[in-house]
C-alpha cells in the first residue's frame, strides 16, 4: 500500500495544475463566493416621474434611492424604465399616483414590497406620509405573484447551455490530442478558424435543440411567460452559445488531457452559477467581486433571457448585454484561432518554401553529398 501511496504522490506532484487546483482553489472559491452569496438587498434603485417628482424623490427613504427624476414624464415612461431594467421601482406622481415594482428582479422586488409595507401605510410608498404618492398601492409588474420559477427558468436555460457547451466542447480538442489525430489535422489543408468552427457548429446545433426543449418545458410545464420577441431571444442565444462553446474550445486547447479540460471547464461553470445573477442578485454581490460577474457570458444571457421573456424588453434596451456577449464570443474566436494556429500551423512560423524552383531542387539534390 505504501508503494501505491508514494506513486500517487509522485503523479500528483507532476500534475501541477491539479495540485494547484486542490490547494489554491478552495480558498479562492470560498473568498469569492463568500462575498457573492448574499440575498440581502440593501439598496433599491427607483425612478420618479410626474409633476411632483422632485418632491417625491427628496422624500424617498432608504433602501430606495432615485436614479432618475423626471417631472416631465408619465406612468408610461416609468413603465418603460422598469421594462428596460433601469430601476427596480418607479414612483409616478400626479393625479393618479402609482408605485410600480419590477417583479422580474425577484429579491429586489421582495425587498421593495417589504420596505413599502414596513413604512406602515401603503400610501406612504417609501416616502413620508405627506408625500405626493398618498393612496398609491404598489403594483408588481412582469411577475405579479413574485414566483421564483419565473426568474429561475429563463436563467436556468442559460445554465443548461453552459454545462453542455463548456464541458462537452472542452473535451473536443483534447480528444484529438489524446488519439493522435491533432497531429494529423496539423498537416491537413484546413485553416485553424475552420477547425474552430467545425468543432463548434455540431455542438451549437445540439445546444440549440436543448435550449428549445428547456424553453418548451419552462413555458408549458412551469407556466413561465414568454412575452418578448422570439427573434431577439434567438439572437441573444446565438451569441451566448458562440461565447460559451468558444470558451469550451479555448479550455480544450490549453489542456493536455480530458481530466484537465474537465477541471478547467468546471472552474468556469461553478463561478458562473453563483456570480451571474442567476441565484444571487448582482446588486447584492460585493463590489470587489462583482466585476468577475461581468466576465461571464451567463451574466449577460440571464439578463437578456429575463428581459425578453418576462418584460418584453426590446433589443434597444438590451444593447449592452448583446454587445458584451458579442465581444466575449469574438475574443474566444480569436483566442481559439491563435491556439489552434500554434498547434495546426507549426511550420508557418519558420521560413520555408512549399514549391522550390527547379534550380533549388537541383541544389537540394546535391545537398546530401559530402562536403
Amino acid at each position, binding site marked *: 500500500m505504501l508503494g501505491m501511496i508514494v506513486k500517487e504522490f509522485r503523479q500528483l506532484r507532476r500534475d501541477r495544475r491539479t495540485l494547484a487546483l486542490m490547494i489554491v482553489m478552495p480558498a479562492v472559491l470560498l473568498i469569492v463566493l463568500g462575498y457573492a452569496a448574499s440575498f440581502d438587498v440593501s439598496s433599491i434603485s427607483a425612478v420618479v416621474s410626474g409633476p411632483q417628482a422632485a418632491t417625491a424623490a427628496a422624500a424617498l427613504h432608504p433602501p430606495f434611492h432615485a436614479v432618475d427624476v423626471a417631472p416631465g414624464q408619465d406612468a408610461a415612461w416609468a413603465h418603460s424604465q422598469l421594462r428596460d431594467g433601469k430601476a427596480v421601482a418607479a414612483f409616478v406622481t400626479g393625479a393618479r399616483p402609482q408605485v410600480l415594482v419590477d417583479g422580474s428582479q425577484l429579491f429586489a422586488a421582495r425587498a421593495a414590497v417589504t420596505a413599502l409595507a414596513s413604512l406602515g401605510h401603503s400610501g406612504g410608498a417609501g416616502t413620508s406620509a405627506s408625500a405626493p404618492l398618498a393612496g398609491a398601492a404598489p403594483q408588481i409588474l412582469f411577475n405579479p405573484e413574485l414566483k421564483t420559477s419565473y426568474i429561475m427558468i429563463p436563467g436556468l436555460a442559460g445554465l443548461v447551455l453552459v454545462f453542455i457547451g463548456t464541458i462537452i466542447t472542452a473535451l473536443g480538442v483534447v480528444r484529438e490530442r489524446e*488519439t*493522435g*489525430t491533432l*497531429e*494529423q489535422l*496539423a*498537416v*491537413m*489543408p*484546413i485553416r485553424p478558424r475552420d477547425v474552430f468552427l467545425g468543432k463548434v457548429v455540431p455542438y451549437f446545433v445540439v445546444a440549440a435543440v436543448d435550449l428549445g426543449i428547456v424553453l418548451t418545458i419552462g413555458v408549458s410545464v412551469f407556466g413561465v411567460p414568454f412575452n418578448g420577441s422570439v427573434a431577439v431571444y434567438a439572437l441573444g442565444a446565438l451569441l451566448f452559445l458562440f461565447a460559451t462553446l468558444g470558451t469550451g474550445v479555448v479550455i480544450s486547447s490549453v489542456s493536455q488531457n480530458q481530466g484537465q479540460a474537465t477541471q478547467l471547464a468546471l472552474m468556469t461553470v461553478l463561478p458562473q452559477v453563483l456570480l451571474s445573477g442567476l441565484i444571487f442578485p448582482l446588486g447584492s454581490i460585493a463590489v470587489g467581486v462583482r466585476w468577475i460577474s461581468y466576465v461571464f457570458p451567463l451574466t449577460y444571457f440571464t439578463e437578456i433571457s429575463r428581459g425578453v421573456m418576462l418584460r418584453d424588453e426590446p433589443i434597444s434596451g438590451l444593447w449592452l448585454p448583446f454587445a458584451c456577449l458579442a465581444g466575449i464570443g469574438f475574443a474566444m474566436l480569436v483566442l481559439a484561432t491563435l491556439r489552434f494556429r500554434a498547434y495546426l500551423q*507549426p*511550420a*508557418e*512560423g*519558420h*521560413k*520555408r*518554401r*512549399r*514549391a*522550390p524552383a*527547379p534550380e*533549388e*531542387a537541383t541544389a*537540394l*539534390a546535391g*545537398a*546530401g*553529398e*559530402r562536403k
Partner: protein
Amino acid sequence: MTAAQRADGARRRAASGTDREWGTRDLSVRFGKRTALDHVTLRAAPGQIGAVVGGDGAGKSTLLGCLAGAVAASQGEVQRPPAARVGYLPSGSGVYPDLTVAENLAFRASVYGVSSAVAGQRVTGLLERTGLASARQRLAGQLSGGMRKKLGVVAAMVHEPELLVLDEPTTGVDPVSRADVWWLIIIAASEGAAVIVSTSYLDEAERTASVLVLSHGRQLAAGTPAEIMAGVPGALRAIRGRPQEDEQPRAWLRAGQWRVWDPPGACAPGPARGGAGRDGGSVIQPDLDDAVTVAELGSELRPADRVEGAGPGLAGGAR
C-alpha cells in the same frame, strides 16, 4: 487499384509538372534546450521510397513530422508540396477511433477535396487488397493494431499525394499485414509519389531506394543501401566465442554469433589475438543491419571526430 489507374496518376503528376524533389536541408529542430534534430538533410524523390532508420529517440518522428508540416523547424529548410498534396501517417494511426473505416476515409476525402465517388473508386481496391473491405462499417477503435495502421496508410493515400510521409507504418504489425502495408507503399510510389518511411526494421529499409540513418538527432549515414553497406569503414569480423575485453565496446551479438568492428587503423586481427583455442574470426561483408550498427558504434566511440574519422558512408551520404 489497377495498373491503368496507377499509370493515370503518374501521368497526371507528370503533366502538372510536379515531379520535383522534396526534403530537408540542414534541418535542425530544438525543443527548448534539447536538440531533437541536428543539421539533417533528407531527399524525397518522386516515384521512390526512402527510409529513415534509427533507434528509439533517434529523431525519426521529428524529422518526418517536420517534413510533413506537423513540427516546426528551428533552422534549415524544408521543401514540401502544399498541404493538400501531402499525405501523412503519424506514429499512431492518425484515424478517429470513434468513426468507422468508411467514415474515416470519407472525412479524409472531404478535407482534401476529393469527391466521394472518386475517393470510393480509389480506396475500394486498396481496402480489398489489404483485407479491410469487410471492415468498412467497423469502428476504427475496434480494429486490430495492424488493421488500424493499414487504414491509416490508406487514409493518407486517399488524395494521391505527391509526398507521402509514413511514420513507422509497420511497427507492431504482424508479418502478413506488414506485407499489405508495403504493397500500399509500393502502389503510392508507382503512382509517382515521393515516399518517406521511418522503420525499425532494417530488412524493410534494405528494399528502399535510399536510407538515412539517424542517431540522437544526428545524421550518421545517407545513401542507397548498397552505398551505406559499401561505406562501412574498417573491417567487420564474425567470431566464434565471446569477444575479448578490448573488443567488447565494438562487438554485438547477432543471430547467435558475435560480430566485431575494427575501425580504420586498428590492429589487424590475427590468430595470435584470439589466444589459445580461439581465432580472430573471419572478415565478412556487412549488410545494412551491420552498417547501421557500425555507424552508431562509430558515433558513440568517437563522437568528437566521427565525421572526420569515419568513412564516406558514415559522413552523411556519398552519392
